[in-house]
């Protein structure tokens, strides 16, 4: 009980008649990195949207950090300690890198002034440089506004934000889908940093090499159901593909497929 950070029981989501997610039982231990794989429409993103409170679930239970939770929205989830990087990035285009990194949790002084308390730009910029350097993210000038940055740089800023503030659980939905080779390597470095820091991660990815490199465990979704729960060391790419395509199903999930 104590070392399980997230558990779902019979998590189910119907969009009208479409059974997008059916009876997902899932556990994630502290410090564990898990990949979710599956074809398009297999229910991966739906699963994540239930956990982060973006959509209300049809049925089932989510137990986070030992307590059953019911998030009304992504903000609720975030305050509970679930940090998610979505495919659509939540960055403010007209603000610079450190502003975005610290948005909503600025370092301040003269706090008795309430909403008019002063920003501590110096500390925030120093921390930003430290955070970006630790994750080896390359940004030419952290005082440039986000609007002038490439997709990869934006993605790196969004991910650096989740890595800077120690959350209880990080979820990344295809973080490298739109990135070039170098930028992908940077994002993977950040993920390794999270692993070293012992922070749990759920990674949705189509990239088999990436998944094999980064995670401890692979969950395979097919047609809205979990069909396999594989330890990385006991499997290989061929095997995973077999589960994704439906050639194989683990015996304990046999009823699902």
């Amino acid at each position: 009980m104590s070392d399980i950070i997230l558990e779902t029981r019979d998590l189910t989501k119907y969009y009208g008649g479409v059974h997008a997610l059916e009876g997902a039982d899932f556990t994630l231990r502290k410090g564990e990195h898990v990949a979710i794989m599956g074809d398009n429409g297999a229910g991966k993103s739906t699963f994540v949207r239930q956990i982060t409170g973006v959509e209300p679930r049809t049925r089932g239970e989510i137990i986070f950090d030992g307590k059953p939770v019911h998030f009304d929205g992504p903000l609720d989830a975030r305050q509970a300690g679930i940090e998610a990087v979505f495919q659509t990035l939540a960055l403010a285009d007209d603000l610079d890198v450190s502003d975005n990194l610290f948005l909503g949790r600025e370092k301040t002084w003269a706090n008795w002034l309430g909403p008019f308390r002063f920003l501590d730009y110096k500390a925030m910029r120093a921390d930003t440089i430290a955070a970006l350097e630790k994750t080896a993210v390359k940004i030419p000038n952290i005082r440039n506004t986000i609007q002038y940055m490439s997709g990869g740089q934006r993605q790196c800023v969004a991910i650096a934000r989740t890595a800077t503030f120690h959350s209880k659980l990080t979820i990344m939905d295809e973080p490298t889908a739109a990135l070039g080779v170098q930028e992908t390597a940077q994002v993977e470095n950040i993920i390794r940093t999270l692993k070293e820091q012992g922070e749990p991660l759920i990674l949705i990815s189509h990239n088999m090499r990436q998944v094999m490199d980064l995670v401890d465990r692979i969950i395979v979704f097919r047609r809205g159901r979990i069909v396999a729960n594989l330890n990385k060391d006991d499997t290989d790419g061929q095997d995973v593909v077999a589960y994704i395509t439906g050639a194989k199903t683990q015996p304990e999930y046999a009823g699902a497929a």
Partner: protein
Amino acid sequence: MAETTHGTGGLKYDSSRRSWPNEFNIFIALVIIVAIFEVLGQLLPYMNGQSFLFDTNDRFDSIFNEARLRIIILQVAIIGIISLGVTQVIISGGIDLSSGPLVAATAMIVMSFAQTELVNGNPNPKAVFGDWAFDLPVIVPIIVGLIFGAFIGAINGILIAFTRIPPFIATLGMFLICRGIAQWWTRGQPVSFPTESYAALGAGMMPVVWFIMLAVVCHVLLRYTVYGKHTYAIGSNEDAARMSGINVRRHKVLIYMIASMLAAFAAIILSSKNLTAQSGMGLFYELYAIAMAVIGGVSLTGGRGSIIGTVLGAMVFGVIQSGFTYIKLDAYFQIMAMGAIIISAVVLDKWRQQRAATRI
């Protein structure tokens, strides 16, 4: 190639490719506009070689035509105060159309609490209330005005933040409500004869002093406080702001309250300067205040702009108005030309943004 220490990961940063601050462009525009009027003054046959900017009378030891400069800055100071609040509203992605009529309504109400009992030894002919409201300390009308402004701003903000109706509609409704309040307050009668201490608030160059002081305060608010950062964030990407844990609704109410309190303060200064309040005052002020902000580079799509830009925009506005009078342009054409200038300011801003986006 200049380098800075701000790059991370060993990247060199070429500061020569950094775009100019937008405020600098507006300053250059201001200089060019002054130069154009100066040249026009020399060229137009009916001007007799009068100068727009310089002192040509040689009666005083000054280089510049100080009288004209004074008039320019005095003319824009009061609308400029409104514009400081409108700037914040527009940066947050909203718009405030109610500020002009709010000036009228506030002036009417405030003036009623600022009347003096005896005018040249006779009872005040414009008295609104009974004896108790005569010769109150000057702080009373100021506080009444600011509370009224905050109240109207709170209604604007609550409507926009909680019912999610567009800011344009909410403040358009408030535009009419405030004009109605201004006319109903005394059934259309002007309110006059303030106390001496009230009259001192807007006497002489005092409007300019208030404008500069409030501009500094607003600049600090927007640039150096959490309030300012969140205002930009909401205007830039409201969803991102909400996801980051900012209480967007509460913040919007606060922005509209501050904007309306600034408009209410402008009403106090204006009625003090004019020594009277009329229900028709503040005509077009909301549009002029928006124009100053837009000329000053505040983007109507939100997220971009600054108080420095708005102050420069106000100066451009004042110089153009004064320049039109200087070259003896007909008043009708002045209003038309003003409209054309506001449109060009927005077009230029769009063009500049597109150009900036293509040279990453």
